[in-house]
């Protein structure tokens, strides 16, 4: 007996003709969200450290060896704030504002503790004036210092245009489908790109896990082009792009993120308590992240930087009658307040 398309449509409609208890579904979704949050928070220090290293692997790839300097000083670089850009015979005038992000790679999401997400630095940022800012990848794990100071180096405007061309060649200027793998634990890549026609933000879910089910060949190829780009940016000299020597980023404002102190297991570091010399820490927000944030600039900056010297992420800080864990990092050129961090 031959059937008609109408029979198929009727059969499919029959499958749709079921009532759903929306309250129950909502409740299950909420429970799922809470469960994954708890799972994130319950990570051990070791697992967190392993994931932090995993999240910063792209940085290791991106960071070339030209310009390793000791980090940890809070007095800022002694030389010029940024080394002079390599001179070229025909340096074009920038079509970008100095503090404008031209290209940035950042890891977001995944099984990262909220405080790590909020204090994390983007893996690599190219600014309109040719500055490149990258985190100090040696400063991770349980003994990581409270104050994270990134590196800054510079390329010429001419070379910045080469970087823009490389990024466009990798497809970042187009609408590309990168697919969505099913793995929730892996950080996602957020790429910000401005080729002069406006800023685009490209999200690639779990870029490092390209073998996940759910990705098509076209999506895998699109992801590979972006990964190739990160390798190219790790080897700028191969493309005739000269980078100045890296220096500690000269901060003008500091973001301080605080989390209420809690008893740590014996296996964690237990550094001595310190007294917080900075401004009052506001109560944590009402959400599950349980974090506070203040920014510090001007006269308070040097006192706070001095006090942060030698402290690690598990140092308990006494503020008034309360104890907190504190992390700090400079606000980058395009950031102006706590709201600009990755919450």
């Amino acid at each position, binding site marked *: *007996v*031959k*059937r*008609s*398309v*109408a*029979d*198929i*449509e*009727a*059969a*499919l*409609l*029959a*499958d*749709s*003709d*079921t009532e*759903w208890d*929306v309250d129950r*579904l*909502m409740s*299950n*979704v909420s429970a*799922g*969200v809470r469960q*994954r949050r708890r799972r994130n928070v319950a990570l051990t220090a070791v697992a967190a450290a392993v994931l932090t290293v995993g999240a910063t692997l792209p940085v290791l790839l991106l960071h070339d060896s030209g310009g390793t300097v000791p980090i940890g000083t809070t007095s800022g670089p002694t030389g010029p704030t940024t080394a002079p850009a390599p001179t070229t015979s025909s340096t074009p005038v920038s079509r970008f504002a100095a503090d404008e992000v031209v290209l940035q790679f950042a890891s977001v*999401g995944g099984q990262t503790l909220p405080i790590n997400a909020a204090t994390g630095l983007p893996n690599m940022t190219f600014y309109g004036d040719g500055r490149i800012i990258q985190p100090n990848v040696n400063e991770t794990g349980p003994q990581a210092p409270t104050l994270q100071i990134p590196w800054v180096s510079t390329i010429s405007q001419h070379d910045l245009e080469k970087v823009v061309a490389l990024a466009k060649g990798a497809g970042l200027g187009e609408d590309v*489908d990168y*697919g*969505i793998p*099913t793995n*929730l634990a892996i950080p*996602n890549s957020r790429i910000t790109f401005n080729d002069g026609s406006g800023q685009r933000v490209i*999200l690639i879910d779990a870029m490092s896990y390209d073998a*996940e*089910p*759910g990705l*098509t060949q*076209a*999506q895998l190829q699109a992801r590979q082009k972006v990964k190739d780009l990160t390798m190219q940016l790790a080897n700028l000299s191969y493309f005739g792009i000269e980078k100045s020597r890296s220096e500690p980023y000269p901060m003008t404002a500091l973001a301080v993120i605080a989390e209420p102190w809690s008893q740590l297991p014996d296996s964690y570091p237990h550094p001595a308590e310190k007294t917080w010399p900075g401004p009052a820490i506001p109560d944590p927000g009402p959400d599950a992240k349980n974090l506070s944030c203040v920014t510090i600039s001007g006269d308070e900056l040097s006192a706070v930087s001095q006090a942060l010297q030698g402290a690690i992420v598990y140092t308990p800080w006494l503020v008034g009658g309360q104890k907190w864990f504190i992390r700090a990092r400079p606000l980058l050129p395009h950031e102006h307040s706590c709201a600009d961090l990755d919450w």
Partner: protein
Amino acid sequence: VPTALEVLVTFEEFARARLAALARYAAVLTGDRALAEDVVQEVMIRAYGRWQQIDEMAQPDAYLRRMIVNEYLSWRRRWARVVPQADAGADQLLPDFTQSHADRQAVRSELARLPRRQRAVLVLRYYEHLTDAEIAEVLDCPQGTVRSLASRALATLRVDARKQQLLGERP
């Protein structure tokens, strides 16, 4: 009147308004109420984590339906690794008390036994009423593959090819 992009919709508002429709869509796609529930819940949990980006899209609903298709296809693949594939879902269909045609239940059982991509093509074509070009985009394959998947599925279901031409081909 503000556009969809200008109205900030919270995840909860969206979920409350659209969960039942998305669950119905997942049920049609999977032919299995329990699997539909699992798929739609997983997709909503994942959507929560990136709601800010999804909310800014012109058509968040379409994006979520696409996530549901991808989740269904990958879900079945994962599941197939550990569970022998035999009549998947056929026994889990709810009895259809409203059916007026004696063959309806048989069609549903046969639909449930189709390979997942073939079933997805039929759902996108005859339930979502997408064109073959749109289906090709959702499944990220050439239009020829869509036509071939549909053709094989319709042959399995013994659907009249002539009527398929008249009714099935979208502009």
